[in-house]
């Protein structure tokens, strides 16, 4: 697959796209994991959503 004299520019563009979109996807996955972990930790501490049953301690 000969990409001709300017092959480096083709590879550079595809590399830029892969890196940027790859980075974006990685960040989204990482951020998602963080939020779920924080949510789980809060649930463990018994902090329910207002919709759920009110937290025991009212003081």
């Amino acid at each position, binding site marked *: 697959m000969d990409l*001709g004299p300017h092959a480096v*520019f083709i590879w550079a*563009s595809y590399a*830029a796209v892969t890196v940027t979109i790859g980075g*974006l996807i990685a960040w989204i996955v990482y951020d998602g994991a963080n939020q779920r972990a924080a949510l789980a930790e809060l649930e463990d501490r018994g902090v329910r959503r207002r919709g759920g049953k009110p937290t025991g301690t009212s003081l």
Partner: protein
Amino acid sequence: MQSWTQRLANPTRFMQVSGTLLPWVAAAAAALIAYGLYLVFFVAPPDYQQGETVKIMYIHVPSAWLALMTYGLIAISSFGLLVFRHPLADVSAKAAAPIGAAFTLLALITGSLWGKPMWGTYWVWDARLTSVLILFFLYLGLMALRSSLDDEGTAAKLTAVLALVGTAILPIIKFSVEWWNTLHQPSTNFTSTVDPSMRWPLLIMAVGFTLLFIAMHLAAMRNEVLRRRVKALRLQEAASRDGLPAHASAAE
């Protein structure tokens, strides 16, 4: 149209629907892009003028298209937030901005890398490239404004106002840049009419990229909904831990 957005309005409902949709959209995007790449590298003919460098078009055009489409999506979400107070409108706008900015940046990078072999310089003040550059500034403005305001509710609405102002002024900017471009330079035909044999791979790549965007946008929105739920719980927890004497502290 109203009922569809209304039904999705409630975040929990959105989380369910997007939860089931996301894997399918992501899979479809991956499949299409893979197939597109195969077509681009093994099937599509080189351009009679540019030779193989036309392969850059297959990622430049989808990126530029998504850059503009995302700004349109942010404008619609902003309108939904300010006029209909749709609860998910800001989640959509906030999630879309960084992705849109990324695609705009990619459009600029690939445009510049494509320009080097064609015109010998990395940057040409061509009307379209210049408009994409200005679009990038509008994205930066949106993200900078949102990040420099503490109160989330205010930040959301102010960013929405800026997005709508940007949308109103964009056509005027486009017109001015095109006028300015013809004033100083003979018009450079950026992409000559796309040869039919190249149109099919380009379409596949464009649809693949759009599905990829939808998948990323949905995932980012889901993260945002979770982030707001975490924040709400923290606020609630802070209120219930207040050490003030009983009668003064907020009960529930």
